[in-house]
């Protein structure tokens, strides 16, 4: 008889212990959400006037998720989580150190454009009359401004081809041709506003030094090709002394041919590209403006070298690789757009975690005191049962963390703390049944057997309602509500498991002990009527 109880009890302990051991051995660990660990969360919503809808929008969003995921992988964040929620893209980067940089990398939404440099201008616009005086002797066919350039160079790596003259001629009216004004006029022009940054316009953008201050401005011609022509790009530390960016173009008319047409124009310094420099521009920022040293390139033999440090080389490569998203998203730092951003500092995250854990432990201790004071040994059994379901919950959470990158957020921690109370309810229901049965004349031994099915039925149906509720919330809502629903559902299921497989045998075992049967102060139960008389 005793064996009948001990075996299942041992079995459940071994199973739970084994699961815990497996989980620890596998190195599964509960991931902390960014509100506990610090990090960045960006939610991107397409701008309202997007022309796409239906399937096209759907496809564009999926593509964007893919592109952002690739960009983020380049950031080296341990557990990035990029998901689509309806028409939004949620990017979570827990633990990311340089949050601003993360924001920039994720938020870059514009088209990558290759524009020829038509003229190099001083950093500050010069009034037209002064400009005329200064450049009255200037030639029409050369760059304006005599500032030194330290632009990146594009050395020859492809075969020096005699076919250069025949290769790809650009169509008329692109590049620096037919701008509608002479480059000298540009001296007095302000930088181009973001709204006027169209592919078919010429633009003026500043070149920034490492401190972010403009030291030159470039007059750029119309776009000659876009990021769509690029296949991929890499940064490498070549020869052990300098950082280089290696773009690879797609083959064919929409890829390398377009690039070669532009390169040819620049190499020959013809009217489309008088300075010989080809600028790579993303969202109004000149990423790089290398001089073209060869008229013809193999699509995978192109090297951009120059003043790159590691960060800039990698960023430029990332921009080249994943430059354009198929959709335009609202600026996350603009509160009037649907997009939003959340940056959590690591120290504040740690503070929240500490506060949550401390509060949980204090709460647990208080509950344990109360349960043991009220139910004595049964209370202790209840706390053990809570430990069993808690361990199982931990194993499941860390498993989900590992496989589905589910992260524990502050909402989850609170959910866990609340579930302490509700899990103990099943024990309370059982114990109260037990007391009532014994008061009605049963012996402890038979009451333990008879009360459980009735109490468990109550617990089961009540928990089933909770599980149904949790499932509805899980499938019909988004974001943090969903995480909470998962926690609620899991806790309810585990409560049933722990009650049935752990609490029942433990209490049964206690009911068999003569030492406990006779001592009301120990069991927390009244003495049976039969035994009293």
């Amino acid at each position: 008889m005793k064996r009948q109880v001990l075996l299942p009890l041992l079995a459940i302990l071994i199973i739970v212990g084994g699961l815990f051991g497996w989980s620890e051995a596998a190195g599964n660990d509960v991931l902390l959400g960014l509100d506990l660990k610090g990090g960045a969360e960006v939610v991107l919503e397409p701008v309202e006037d997007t022309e796409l809808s239906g399937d096209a929008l759907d496809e564009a969003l999926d593509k964007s998720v893919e592109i952002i995921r690739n960009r983020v992988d380049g950031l080296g964040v341990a557990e990035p989580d990029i998901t689509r929620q309806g028409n939004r893209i949620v990017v979570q980067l827990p633990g990311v150190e340089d949050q601003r940089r993360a924001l920039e990398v994720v938020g870059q939404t514009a088209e990558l454009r290759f524009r020829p440099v038509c003229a190099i201008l001083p950093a500050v616009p010069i009034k037209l009359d002064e400009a005329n005086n200064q450049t009255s002797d200037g030639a029409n066919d050369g760059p304006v401004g005599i500032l030194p350039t330290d632009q990146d160079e594009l050395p020859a790596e492809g075969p020096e081809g005699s076919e250069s003259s025949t290769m790809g001629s650009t169509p008329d009216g692109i590049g620096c041709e037919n701008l509608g004004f002479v480059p000298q006029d540009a001296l007095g022009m302000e930088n181009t506003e973001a709204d006027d940054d169209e592919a078919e316009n010429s633009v003026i953008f500043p070149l920034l030094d490492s401190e972010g201050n403009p030291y030159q401005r470039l007059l750029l011609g119309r776009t000659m090709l876009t990021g769509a022509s690029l296949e991929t790009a890499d940064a490498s530390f070549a020869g052990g002394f300098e950082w280089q960016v290696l773009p690879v173009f797609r083959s064919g008319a929409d890829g390398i041919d377009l690039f070669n047409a532009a390169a040819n124009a620049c190499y020959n310094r013809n009217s489309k590209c008088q300075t010989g420099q080809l600028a790579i521009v993303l969202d109004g920022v000149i990423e790089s403006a290398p001089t073209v040293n060869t008229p013809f390139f193999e699509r995978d033999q192109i090297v951009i070298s120059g003043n790159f440090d590691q960060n800039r080389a990698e960023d430029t490569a990332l921009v080249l690789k994943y430059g354009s998203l198929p959709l335009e998203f609202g600026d996350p730092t603009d509160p009037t757009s649907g997009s939003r951003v959340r940056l959590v500092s690591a120290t504040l995250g740690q503070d929240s975690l500490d506060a949550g854990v401390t509060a949980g432990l204090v709460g647990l201790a208080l509950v344990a005191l109360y349960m043991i004071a009220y139910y004595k040994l049964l209370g202790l059994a209840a706390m053990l049962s809570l430990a069993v379901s808690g361990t199982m919950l931990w194993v499941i959470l860390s498993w989900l963390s590992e496989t589905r990158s589910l992260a524990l957020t502050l909402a989850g921690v609170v959910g866990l703390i609340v579930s302490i109370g509700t899990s103990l309810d099943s024990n309370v229901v059982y114990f109260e049944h037990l007391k009532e049965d014994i008061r009605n004349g049963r012996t402890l031994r038979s009451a333990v057997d008879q009360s459980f099915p009735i109490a468990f039925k109550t617990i089961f149906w009540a928990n089933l309602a909770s599980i149904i509720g949790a499932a509805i919330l899980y499938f019909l809502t988004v974001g943090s509500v969903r995480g909470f629903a998962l926690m609620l559902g899991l806790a309810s299921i585990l409560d049933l498991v722990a009650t049935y497989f752990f609490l029942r045998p433990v209490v049964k075992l206690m009911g068999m002990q003569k030492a406990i049967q006779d001592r009301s102060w120990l069991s927390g139960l009244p003495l049976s009527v039969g035994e009293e008389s």
Partner: protein
Amino acid sequence: MSVLRRMYRNETSVPFAKLWKPVGLCSLLVLIISVSSLGFRGLNLGLEFEGGGAWEVEASGIEVEQVRNALPQSVSDAARIQTGGGVLRVRIELSKAAQTSLQEGESGGDIVQEVTAALVVVTGQDESAISVSTAGPSWGEEITDKAINALIVFFIVIALYITIRLRWEMAVGALLAVAHDILITIGLYALFQFEVTPPTVIAFLTIMGYSLYDTLVVFDKVRDNEHMLANSKLTYTLVVEKALNQVFMRSVNTSITSILPVVSVLVVGSGIMGAATLREFALALLIGLIIGTFSSLFVAAPTATFLRNRFGDADSDSNRSYRLSEAVKKKSKNSQVVVKTPSNPAIPPRPRKKRK
């Protein structure tokens, strides 16, 4: 015997039925206050619902005025600044500020940067030590819309569930109790103008789940006792009252074990250790848990009883087969009922143990 001792021994005989009316009136009063303060004062919605930005940074010994003066002119008046617990909190309703500056030809994104830069200067902390969050006004609305949709489905499914499992009168009672709890909690938030944030919405949902669970345990007991209608000719009201007395201690204990951790979160987590988000959860939970236990006994039960007395079919009770609670088959001290096992054919004989 002292009341406590009687409670411990589950021998209370609280005349719940007599209390229902006065307590129900009080409850109604609180409900009216809640709903009207919701109507007149409205909710103090957090920035997630209004569109805005929030900054948090560790800083001690900084005066509110100092921070206000350091903030950019366009937002310094609208900023809500809190210091305390070694953490400086600044919240700004950005949509207005952004509109103003848009009219002045600046872009809204700059404000966020400006405020962050101002806080770096005033606290002397590194930029990465500052938590920033911004939200458009649509987001909070959307999450609330989704939650409300889910709620409607939830109510329908749970109503069906209780009707099938127990009785339709109980379904009405349980859902009324849930609605009562949510309305009062939200009403108190409106009355005291506590801030409603997404964590608060989650807390409201938790309350719902808890309230429902608690009510179902009570109703299950009532159902177990329903055989007394036929067997001992008790009125339905008395049957319910007896059941409520039987589960009374369980309700009290469950409330205590649920409320203790939440109080700990409120006092230790948010009070002593200063985690503001924890308060957003815990306050709503605390109010809701207390009301949830109360409503099971004083809203759900009387509603179900009233409906049952009004619409119930007395004949069906004697024909209906009940699964008897083993516990009440015994002679009960409070009611002079003797239920002999064979008197109800639906009761299976107590199974013998297979091995003894």
